[in-house]
């Protein structure tokens, strides 16, 4: 469970900052940090097992039938990444506390950051690739929120959109690739997939899967030609850049390549695609970085370049190269995060990060300079820092790899290293060295330890790993590299490989060349500015804009906010799809024998049809249309009876009358007639669409009813099990309260929510002064007859107990005979409604000792308790029990827990109907009417409200 907890903790932690920000920024940051720290401690507890070569696994079955399980596993690679994510995350939380301005909403920032952290930890701990994909998409979404955190900056919004489009698009490709991979391997669990190397590489689907997965990895890790989003993502606050775009998220693609290295690597396809992309990215981005003036842009392109370096190493497909890649992941995370934070400090203190306006910061900001010095020397690959160690190993690997020609790879790697030296020194020389200027936008000085503490810690790591690599980092590299390669790796890292090592001379050439380039920066810059370059953002916009315009025009064509247009499109599309399926399906007419049609049935059917067809012609007078609709509803009742469905008949007629009442209440506030809004041809077209919809459904029903089902229907089971299994002879009721009780449970909750929503909406309406004024001005048009005729009042009062008795009777017998809680609830509601209509709302309501809301609440509660009662007997939720009881002088009768559940249904239905009608009729009371407090107020009303 620990692994699931580690992955869940950041998500839980994401809820806290929003609340804790009320307690102040320090409390907010401290609490957020403590959650990450807790996750880090839990991870550390697992470390001994993993370092001993073991694997920690957690398995939670979720949808086993789909192969979708929440399975997590932790090996060396996962430990390395999870440690990086949580450890650097902790430093970033500290740094962000002091970096964010007073006006920035800090709670929101930390919430987004924790969401991102959780998604990242999820990726590296997932065992199931479907789960991994979910976390993968989550990182895209949360990074979108983080890049666009400064919503007021257009660059932030555009950068966020671009990052989402590129990484999200890559993620979609990767989903397809992963599904193919899972299909080949026969499992979606990584632990299984990683053992299927031969099967995967022999499969004809290997190349498509590889390309799709690499699309996801390359877009995420900003590899050429998808590198352009990363510099634009630098519009994010610096803590985000340091965390997402140097240490963690952009390494997710590398993580994935390393994770799948055992099964995907080693083929020529892998070598050519991955190492070429990495090499091109490394050289090209290093060159661009050298000419960038913005400190963060320089670092961003340098990040792209280093990501290319690691990708290239993974692409070599050899065990040694993969080990170097793992080592460089650690080193790059330490020095690059420190450099980003340094750039952030400069920006924070000098109010600019334009390298041309800086310089001379060495004396003004000595601490920051110290950090920047060590970190950028490491980035340049100067001994004895850690960047030197991995760069040396990389050059050695590149020199011995044949790419087109035996020497091309080595030369290009040296060129990249040369540029790397050049931009690292430019960062230092143009930013910190030189004379102190007097035209900074803001006079810089060293910030407090809150800001420089985090990068200083990372620089200590840079130095310690650099000086004592075997003691400080080799164990982690060994564990991670063993996990990547699937073989036990024992790495040997030294500073001195001897004079015969070719990497030494490549390094010397790189440092010398880099320094020379820095010296010739001016002329080189002039050449750079003179050469035309493709502008990535313009190309991107050029592709995205037409697509967006196309999508927009299509959307507006189909959905122009006109309901009739939207319905017509949907109906025609569905009917077209149905027709297409029908013509291609090899249709055979149904073989069922048809029932004889009695003359009376034909007559009633014709009457119903006439009434239904009349509605479209007469609908302009709304109440007349309602009468015709009522006829259709009424005649449905004998049809249900004829087809031996008395339950449906009862439900139909009680729902029918409640609907009519609701409609009449609403019609009171609406115009009495509907105006003609569209020309005749348009109405003809609409009639055609409606005809297609009706005819299609009718035809479908006919086809279904005239044939045997392709599968044995489940109704036989219900019929056979109704008595022995659920203890009732009314199958409809036992299905509702027993077999499918869970559905009913959900439905009554929905019903209750719907009633509450009606209440809330009408309450909101009544709160608005404009609406109450309009209502008060509305006078009923017809003012004839008595408000509360005595005849009606007396007769409905007599009817009340009788109607209730019918309701109780229907409820009690429901389990064995037609009836049940639903119909009983409606009958009770009708009984109350009669009182409302006869004696007035206020008079009746003041005599009710219960609240409608409470009825709904009790209904749901009773249903829940009757279901939860099964737990006491160790049975699943909503398992029903029944017992036959003999109680003198009564006959033997049955007690079933399903009846208690049905009571819940009853209460919920009653409360919901009453609440809905009461909400609507409350509107009527605001129409400037006088309200009665006494019954039969045939004379003048007594009281005004």
């Amino acid at each position, binding site marked *: 469970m620990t692994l699931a907890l580690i992955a869940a903790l950041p998500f839980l932690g994401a809820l806290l900052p929003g609340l804790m920000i009320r307690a102040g920024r320090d409390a907010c940051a401290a609490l957020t940090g403590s959650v990450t720290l807790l996750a880090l401690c839990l991870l550390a507890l697992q470390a001994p097992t993993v370092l001993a070569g073991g694997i920690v696994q957690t398995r939670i079955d979720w949808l086993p039938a789909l192969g979708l399980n929440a399975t997590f596993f932790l090996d060396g690679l996962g430990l390395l990444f999870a440690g990086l994510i949580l450890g650097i995350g902790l430093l970033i939380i500290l740094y962000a506390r002091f970096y964010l301005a007073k006006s920035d909403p800090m709670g929101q920032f930390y919430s987004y950051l924790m969401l991102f952290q959780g998604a990242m930890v999820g990726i590296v701990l997932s065992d199931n690739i479907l789960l991994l994909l979910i976390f993968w998409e989550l990182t895209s979404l949360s990074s979108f929120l983080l890049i666009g955190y400064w919503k007021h900056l257009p660059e932030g919004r555009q950068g966020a959109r671009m990052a989402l489009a590129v990484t999200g698009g890559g993620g979609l490709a990767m989903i397809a690739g992963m599904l193919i991979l899972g299909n080949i391997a026969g499992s979606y669990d990584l632990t299984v997939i990683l053992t299927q190397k031969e099967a995967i590489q022999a499969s004809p689907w290997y190349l498509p899967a590889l390309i799709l997965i690499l699309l996801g990895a390359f877009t995420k890790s900003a590899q050429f030609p998808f590198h352009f989003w990363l510099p634009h993502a630098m519009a994010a606050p610096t803590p985000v850049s340091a965390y997402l775009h140097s240490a963690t998220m952009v390494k997710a693609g590398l993580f994935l390549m390393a994770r799948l290295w055992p099964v995907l690597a080693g083929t020529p396809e892998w070598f050519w695609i991955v190492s070429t992309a990495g090499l091109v990215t490394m050289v090209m981005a290093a060159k661009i970085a050298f000419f960038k003036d913005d400190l963060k842009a320089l670092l961003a392109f340098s990040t792209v370049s280093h990501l290319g370096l690691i990708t290239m190493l993974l692409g070599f497909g050899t065990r040694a190269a993969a080990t170097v890649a793992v080592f460089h992941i650690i080193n790059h995370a330490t020095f690059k995060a420190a450099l980003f934070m340094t750039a952030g400090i400069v920006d924070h203190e000098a109010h600019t990060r334009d390298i041309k306006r800086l310089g001379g910061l060495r004396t003004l900001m000595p601490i920051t300079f110290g950090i920047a010095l060590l970190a950028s020397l490491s980035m340049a690959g100067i001994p004895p820092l850690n960047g030197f160690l991995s760069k040396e190993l990389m050059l050695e690997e590149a020199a011995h790899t044949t790419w087109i020609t035996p020497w091309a790879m080595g030369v290009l790697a040296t060129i990249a290293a040369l540029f790397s030296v050049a931009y690292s020194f430019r960062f230092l020389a143009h930013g910190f060295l030189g004379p102190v200027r007097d035209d900074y936008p803001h006079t810089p000085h060293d910030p407090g330890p809150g800001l420089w503490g985090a990068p200083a810690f990372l620089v200590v790591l840079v130095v310690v790993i650099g000086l004592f690599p075997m003691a400080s980092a080799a164990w982690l590299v060994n564990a991670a590299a063993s996990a990547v390669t699937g073989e036990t790796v024992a790495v040997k890292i030294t500073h001195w490989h001897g004079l015969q090592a070719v990497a030494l001379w490549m390094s010397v050439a790189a440092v010398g060349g880099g320094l020379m380039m820095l010296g010739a920066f001016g002329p080189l810059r002039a050449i750079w500015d003179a050469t035309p370059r493709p502008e990535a953002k313009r190309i991107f916009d050029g592709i995205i804009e037409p697509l967006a315009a196309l999508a927009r025009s299509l959307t507006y064509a189909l959905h122009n906010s006109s309901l009739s247009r939207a319905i017509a499109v949907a109906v025609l599309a569905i009917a077209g799809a149905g027709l297409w399926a029908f013509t291609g399906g090899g249709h055979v007419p149904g073989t069922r024998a048809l029932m004889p049609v*009695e003359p009376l049935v034909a007559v009633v059917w014709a009457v119903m049809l*006439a009434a239904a067809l009349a509605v479209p012609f007469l609908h302009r007078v709304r109440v007349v249309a309602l*009468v015709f609709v009522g006829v259709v509803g009424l005649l449905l009742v004998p049809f249900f*009876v004829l087809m031996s469905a008395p339950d449906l008949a009862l439900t139909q007629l009680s729902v029918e009358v409640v609907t009519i009442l609701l409609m009449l209440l609403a019609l009171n506030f609406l115009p009495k007639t509907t105006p003609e809004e569209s020309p005749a041809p348009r109405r003809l077209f609409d009639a055609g669409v409606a005809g297609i919809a009706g005819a299609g459904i009718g035809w479908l029903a006919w086809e279904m009813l005239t044939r045997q089902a392709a599968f044995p229907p489940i109704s036989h089971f219900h019929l056979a099990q109704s008595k022995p299994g659920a203890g009732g002879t009314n199958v409809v009721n036992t299905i509702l309260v027993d077999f499918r009780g869970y559905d009913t449970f959900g439905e009554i909750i929905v019903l209750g929510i719907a009633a509450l929503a009606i209440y809330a909406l009408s309450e909101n309406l009544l709160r608005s002064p404009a609406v109450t004024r309009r209502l008060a001005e509305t006078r009923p048009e017809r003012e004839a*007859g008595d408000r509360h005729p005595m005849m009606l009042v007396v007769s409905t009062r007599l009817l009340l107990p009788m109607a209730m008795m*019918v309701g109780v009777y229907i409820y009690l017998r429901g389990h064995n005979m037609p009836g049940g809680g639903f119909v009983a609830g409606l009958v009770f509601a009708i009984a109350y*409604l009669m009182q409302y209509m006869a004696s007035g709302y206020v008079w009746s309501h003041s005599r009710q000792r219960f609240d409608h809301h409470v009825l709904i609440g009790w209904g749901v509660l009773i249903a829940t308790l009757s279901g939860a009662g099964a737990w006491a007997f160790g049975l699943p939720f909503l398992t029903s029990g029944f017992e036959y009881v003999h109680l003198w002088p009564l006959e033997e009768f049955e007690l079933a827990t399903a009846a208690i559940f049905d009571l819940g249904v009853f209460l919920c239905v009653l409360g919901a109907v009453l609440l809905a009608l009461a909400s609507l009729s409350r509107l009527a009371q605001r129409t400037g009417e006088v309200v009665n407090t006494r019954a039969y107020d045939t004379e003048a009303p007594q009281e005004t409200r």
Partner: protein
Amino acid sequence: MILGYALTFMFACIGLAFALNIWRLFTAPTLTDRIVTLDTMTINAIALVVLYGIRAGTGLYLEAAVLLALTGFLGTVAYCKFLLRGSIIE
């Protein structure tokens, strides 16, 4: 035997009644006439349900008939109140 004839006769009557009802529903001059027609149709539907019960030899459908009477009454009252007063719950 005699029951069968009686049922057939009754079904014929009710069918005729429904046909006349729908005729009236279409030709009615005022809304009041339509409400009365709807009420008559409810009565006919009650009769039909009861007759089906007699034919099937079961009392199961009686509840539907009882409830139909109740809701039919309520519906007619509601239409009338709407016609007279606008608001059905005052």
